[in-house]
């Protein structure tokens, strides 16, 4: 990122290639719509490019990157220009993209169907959470950021992050535990 700051476009494209999957995935888990998630992700990288000159390596680059992604996602929701959809057809595009998708291929069609239904339900319930709870949970579970980093990304205190994550888990627990139990 320091090289990008000094105008190295190759360095920017390297960063783009390295992080595009993660950012698109984050935006998709946030809004639940493929086309919108890619638009949001493009906006994230545009802002990274524009803000490159102001970048200061105080923390991890990914903390800064997902701070921008969080702002983009939260602002997009406020505009109300998108609708929340669960695109179950997206599962076809997931083949080979990750270990979970590869694992699914070993299952029978019935279990594949059940697994898809489960994923749809989880995504649906995740989309129902209030914005900040949803984004805090995604940053914690998918991004593996600490409470301190999430606080910086969302713009609140660590204690508030703790409460957001707790409430998000509590709500999902109420919806999902009766269906899936506390199985591994």
């Amino acid at each position: 990122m320091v090289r990008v700051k000094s105008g190295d476009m190759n360095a920017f494209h390297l960063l783009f290639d390295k992080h595009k999957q993660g950012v698109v995935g984050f935006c998709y888990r946030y809004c639940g719509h493929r086309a919108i998630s890619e638009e949001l992700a493009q906006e994230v990288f545009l802002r990274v490019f524009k803000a490159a000159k102001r970048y200061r390596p105080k923390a991890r680059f990914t903390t800064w990157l997902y701070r921008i992604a969080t702002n983009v996602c939260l602002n997009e929701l406020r505009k109300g220009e998108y609708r929340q959809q669960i695109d179950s057809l997206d599962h076809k595009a997931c083949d080979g993209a990750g270990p979970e998708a590869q694992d699914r291929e070993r299952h029978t069609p019935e279990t594949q169907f059940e697994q898809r239904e489960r994923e749809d339900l989880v995504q649906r319930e995740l989309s129902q959470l209030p914005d900040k709870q949803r984004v805090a949970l995604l940053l914690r579970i998918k991004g593996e950021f600490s409470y301190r980093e999430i606080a910086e990304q969302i713009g609140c205190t660590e204690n508030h992050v703790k409460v957001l994550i707790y409430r998000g888990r509590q709500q999902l627990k109420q919806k999902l535990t009766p269906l899936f139990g506390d199985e591994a």
Partner: protein
Amino acid sequence: MKSDCPDESQVSAYADGELGTPAAAQMRAHLALCGHCRKLLRAYQAVDRQIGALPEISVSASFESGFRERLEALDEGPRGMERLKQLLSGWRPVWAFAVAVCLVAGVFLYGRFEKQAPSMEEVVIVENLELFRDFELIQKLELLEAWDHIEAEPEPS
């Protein structure tokens, strides 16, 4: 839930490894004895697994090309209607309106001030009045100086 159970948010934070060392040790000791809190912790961990197991989506083929187009458009800057839309959005119209109001008010007040400015004739009269006052003052001073002589003169019969 027992009365000595910690707040559930503490169990959630423990699941994330976000409790300090003493608090984490206390939580471990409590979990060893409390089935309710252990069940709660397992439920939170199950929720995390469900979210973590959501598969990654593949980036579409057009994502990168679409991004490059937007990046190139950024270098060129907005043109025509887009530029006009950009100018009309945001706080610029508000500032422009405020400046326009100030200008109009300034012109209006200047016009009024100019009407109230004294004419040349008035200026000459004022200057003459000042001279007259000065003359009057000088006359009084001269009278004062000559007072001894005036007092000494006999009264006319």
